[in-house]
């Protein structure tokens, strides 16, 4: 086998390994499996057509995410004035169902995620689920690290509001207060 072909084989393995997360990113971004899969397909075809522009030794996964993210953003700009018709489509397309309560929780969360501005949504997913660092996420989105941090923060704040997490009794205001409350409880108990 030629070294050239061997290298391409390795690249294929690396790309294959990145696909499940790339697809999860796409579905989380647009909330519709069919649209997301078209997006993944387009991203992979673009990547293959531009393999020469990939720098060996850099993060293949981040490269693929960047391509997909840019495709999504340009598509989003085109579709902005169209009415989004993505309600319910995701849950219907799932082929297996976890426990009912978890299912409901995931659906509720996905609905809340849809309410976020796309730049906050992508930042939160990249950092909170795809496992990229703030620096990598900033490179993928083409913005400053501080911008990613503030977008992730705002996304969390907005989600907490939508899902009413901030009012729940089992969530204390901050670590220090909880520590005090907990130690107080322990003292009283003993």
């Amino acid at each position: 086998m030629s070294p050239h072909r061997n290298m391409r084989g390795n690249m294929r393995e690396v790309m294959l390994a990145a696909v499940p997360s790339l697809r999860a990113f796409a579905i989380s971004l647009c909330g519709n499996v069919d649209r997301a899969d078209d997006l993944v397909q387009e991203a992979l075809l673009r990547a293959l057509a531009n393999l020469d522009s990939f720098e060996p030794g850099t993060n293949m996964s981040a490269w693929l995410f960047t391509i997909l993210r840019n495709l999504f953003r340009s598509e989003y700009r085109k579709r902005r004035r169209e009415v989004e018709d993505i309600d319910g489509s995701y849950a219907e397309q799932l082929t297996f169902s976890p426990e009912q309560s978890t299912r409901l929780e995931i659906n509720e969360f996905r609905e809340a995620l849809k309410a976020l501005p796309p730049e906050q949504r992508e930042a939160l997913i990249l950092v909170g689920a795809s496992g990229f660092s703030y620096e990598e996420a900033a490179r993928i989105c083409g913005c400053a690290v501080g911008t990613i941090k503030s977008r992730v923060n705002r996304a969390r704040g907005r989600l907490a509001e939508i899902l009413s997490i901030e009012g729940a009794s089992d969530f204390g205001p901050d670590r220090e207060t909880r520590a005090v409350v907990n130690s107080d409880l322990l003292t009283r108990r003993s």
Partner: protein
Amino acid sequence: MNIRKPSKQRQSLKLQGSEMKPVAKLGTDIKAKIGQQLRLMYDEIVEQGVPERFAKILRGLDDPSNESSKNEPA
């Protein structure tokens, strides 16, 4: 003296009577809860693996009949 009128949104938030905290002060539990739900949603898709249509696209990469390998000796 504060002469800035509170915005409509701020007023309605105050009316809810909840402790509205600045985003920067979100508790670690809230972050953890959101992170957990986010990963739950994400991982259930990741666990579906690689659909055949994508495996097929990538198979072309090291296929000898692939265009990029055509000028190599068979």
